[in-house]
């Protein structure tokens, strides 16, 4: 008897139970919308069951209850399909029905409020009930997909079934069916700015990620090879992570402001001097290091490294900050649209062309394939360079060389430069740690056999160690990407733009719509970026080391 009950619980879908209770609980106790007479006055909360009129609101509530019962149906396959259908339906209706009710409320807004209330641009705010409804619907959908996976439904069928609700929502958005919500009103008013900020956000994250990847892999490699540097590097990146982002922006403000004031020519001169000095020191050390006593040798090695780090860091900051400005300019200049898409196409085609060569044996079928395959790369490079030149020209073209300051390159105490530097620093912890762990965990026998067969150190790194550590490094990249999406929102405080602009503005004016307008795209960006990186990881990881 007890065993039977246990099996029954084991076979039931408790996630669906949770999703159903979540949605129905919200519909019963929480307001789904809030009607505000104007922008500032407090609104009138309305729960789903309070909405007057026909039965469909009650039906939505009952629909939200069904997963609670469906959870105990025995047939896994049928239960899965039912849950997927109900989940999709809850998601769509949770957005659609309150919008219908909202329009009705708006047309009779005067009657709702006390006489004397100023009614100007009355609006419908989405409220907590919609959030719980969406979450409950999504959980139900997820529970259904889990059932389907276990009952052996095909991946394609599951993918399509899971996406139906989202597709309907997109169609509703595009068709203006949800325009009554104030967040949509806000979106229509500021859509163009939103697109630009969104773009900025993406570029921020990707540029910082790329810079972090180069530095992170280098540091991770160093830590994995040098027992003495190991602890220092891992501690250092750990400590960076503990500095609050606001404080880090503040710390970067002063030196970057000073750097921004410098004239380009004088800085270039100083830079050449520094770089030359470092190079000379390195050459001298290389010549004599065998003869130096152990201590002196170490000390001079560290000195030379630091000497070299200063010009390198300067150059990196300049290139990244200027690169960001240039990229943004390229992306927003209308006259570059054609070249932009052509270059994008070439970049997209190149890897396909390369891999097609192996798969379809083009090397033999297509004469000159060996040379032809680099054609898309060449096109992409040419297009990219032209784009860069155009963007740089647009930014700097009007200035005299002698008057050019570093600020013209986008480096100053506030804005892009400190934001990207801070983001790069924050990306280091997961990148360095995972690179280190990935490299350290490789079986030494594998590296030894590679060395014994005649791999050079570089070949061993790129052909053995990097591919083997790749999944672990990618886990770090995904980790870093998601946290960067979040931190990039804070960069708005120092005038760097991005989606944080909307959030800050919303917080300052207690406008939830504004906050959501910034937050929802940020969340979407994080989810999409994570999924894209996961797909990339899957494509680039050898089947020989993929997790089964």
């Amino acid at each position, binding site marked *: 008897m007890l065993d039977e009950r246990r099996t029954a619980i084991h076979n039931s879908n408790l996630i669906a139970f949770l999703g159903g209770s979540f949605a129905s609980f919200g519909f019963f106790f929480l307001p789904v919308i809030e009607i505000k007479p104007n922008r500032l006055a407090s609104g009138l909360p309305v729960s789903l069951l309070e909405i007057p009129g026909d039965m469909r609101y009650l039906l939505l509530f009952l629909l939200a209850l069904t997963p609670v019962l469906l959870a105990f149906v025995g047939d896994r396959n049928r239960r899965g399909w039912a849950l997927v259908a109900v989940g999709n339906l809850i998601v769509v209706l949770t957005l659609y029905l309150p919008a219908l009710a909202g329009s009705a409320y708006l047309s009779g807004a005067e009657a709702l409020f006390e006489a004397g209330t100023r009614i100007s641009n009355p609006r419908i705010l989405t409220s907590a009930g919609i959030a719980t409804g969406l979450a409950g619907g999504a959980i139900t959908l997820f529970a259904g997909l889990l059932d389907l996976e276990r009952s052996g439904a095909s991946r394609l069928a599951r993918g399509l079934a899971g996406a139906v609700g989202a597709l309907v929502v997109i169609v509703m958005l595009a068709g203006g069916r949800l325009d009554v919500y104030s967040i949509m009103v806000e979106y229509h008013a500021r859509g163009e700015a939103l697109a630009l900020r969104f773009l900025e956000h993406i570029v921020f994250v990707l540029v910082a990620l790329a810079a972090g990847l180069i530095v992170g892999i280098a540091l991770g490699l160093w830590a994995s090879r040098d027992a003495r540097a190991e602890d220092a590097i891992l501690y250092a990146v750990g400590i960076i992570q503990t500095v609050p982002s606001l404080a880090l922006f503040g710390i970067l403000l002063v030196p970057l402001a000073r750097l921004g004031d410098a004239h380009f020519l004088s800085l270039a001169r100083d830079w050449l001097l520094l770089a030359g000095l470092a190079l000379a020191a390195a050459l001298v050390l290389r010549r004599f290091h065998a003869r130096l006593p152990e201590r002196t040798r170490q000390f001079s090695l560290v000195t030379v490294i630091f000497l070299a780090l200063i010009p390198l860091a300067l150059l990196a900051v300049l290139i990244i900050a200027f690169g960001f400005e240039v990229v943004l300019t390229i992306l927003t200049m209308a006259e570059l649209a054609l070249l932009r898409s052509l270059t994008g196409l070439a970049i997209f085609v190149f890897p396909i062309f390369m891999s097609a060569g192996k798969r379809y044996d083009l090397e033999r079928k297509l004469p000159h394939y060996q040379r032809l395959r680099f054609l898309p790369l060449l096109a992409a490079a040419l297009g990219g360079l032209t784009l860069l030149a155009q963007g740089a020209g647009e930014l700097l073209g009007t200035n005299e060389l002698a008057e050019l300051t570093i600020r013209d390159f986008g480096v100053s105490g506030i804005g892009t430069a400190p934001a990207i530097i801070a983001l790069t620093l924050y990306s280091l912890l997961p990148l360095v740690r995972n690179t280190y762990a990935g490299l350290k965990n490789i079986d030494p026998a*594998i590296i030894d056999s590679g*060395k014994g067969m*005649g791999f050079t150190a570089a070949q061993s790194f790129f052909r053995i160690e990097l591919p083997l550590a790749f999944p672990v490094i990618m886990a770090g990249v995904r980790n870093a990407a998601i946290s960067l999406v979040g931190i990039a929102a804070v960069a708005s405080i120092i005038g760097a733009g991005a989606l944080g602009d909307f959030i800050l503005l919303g917080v300052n004016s207690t406008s939830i719509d504004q906050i959501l307008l910034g937050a929802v795209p940020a969340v979407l960006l994080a989810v999409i970026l994570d999924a894209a990186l996961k797909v990339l990881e899957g494509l680039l990881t050898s089947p020989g080391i993929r997790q089964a």
Partner: protein
Amino acid sequence: MIEFKDVIKEYPNGFRAVDDLNLTVRDGEICVLIGPSGCGKTTALRMVNRLIDVTRGEILIDGQPNDEFEPEVLRRQIGYAIQQIGLLPHMTIRDNVAIVPRLLDWDEERIRQRVDLLLDMVGIDPSIHGDKYPRQLSGGQQQRVGVARALGADPPIMLMDEPFGAVDPITRAILQEEFLQIQQEVSKTIIFVTHDIDEAIYMGDRIALLRAGRLVQYDTPDDLLAMPRDDFVREFVGADRSLKRLHLISVKDSMMNNVPCCDHDASLEEVAACLQRRQSDSAFVVDASSGVLLGWVERADLAESRSLAEAMHHAPAGSIAVPEDATAREALSVLLSHSFDLTPVIDAEGVLTGGVSIQRLQDLVEAPGIHAAAQPERRR
């Protein structure tokens, strides 16, 4: 040819892993380095392809010091197989075997042919396993691929550091035998490290026994067993060294051709005369026309019988005899399990060709190195 000349490996803390090693490995020979752990055998091996640098002295490869090559160039000309195998898990079996040819920039068609040839040679079907990844193969199959990979670019020299160490004893024995067959074909100059004296005796043309970095004895397996230089060697090869030597000797080389025997249709008088003539208490009985061994007859049985057929003991040849290609050790085993003073030897058809006596085996074990020429015989 590989020559170690006064080679010393000394670490900064003063520890000498290899101490004044002088050793010559001749072309086409397997030289086994053996000794207790920490004796420097792996260090000596890894100095050949410069995975470890020599402190003093030099290692000559075909007369040329090995530090005249770039390390990578040198290593690509020397096959390398290790106990942990070290197959690259992210590459297919084919790609693993193709590593060194690719490093040497062979063209793809030639590589494809070479890889398939090598995989076939080590008993891995390239059409079935070629595109699999290492983790999809068993330990034994991985060791085979490891050997194929070491042979990849057809290097004249191979370094093998316990290459069959990671598999169970049965698989190991099969791999050893197969590798000796391959070596018959390819005839590489091989340095082979092991800690297993039986493997050393079976695989080695010569065995170099090391202790604390020093070469104690360098001899053929047979001489090492016959004439251990000191107590350390004697103890290392084990108290059963005589038995081990017998393992090296084939029956064919140790048997006497002239054994007491008579045809199955002989009369009792003829048999008695034969026994008398040979001063023996028993004789083997063979088929008069084919010479196939049928059984034996003893002097004591003659008196009570009317014919040889009645007096003789019938026995299927396999149960009392050993084949010609067996080792002397197997012959001894049969000797001990029957009460004969002579174990009959038969050929593939069952024809009696000779016999092995305990006296003969004793003589063999006591005489040093008489059958050095017979050694290749055991590599059938």
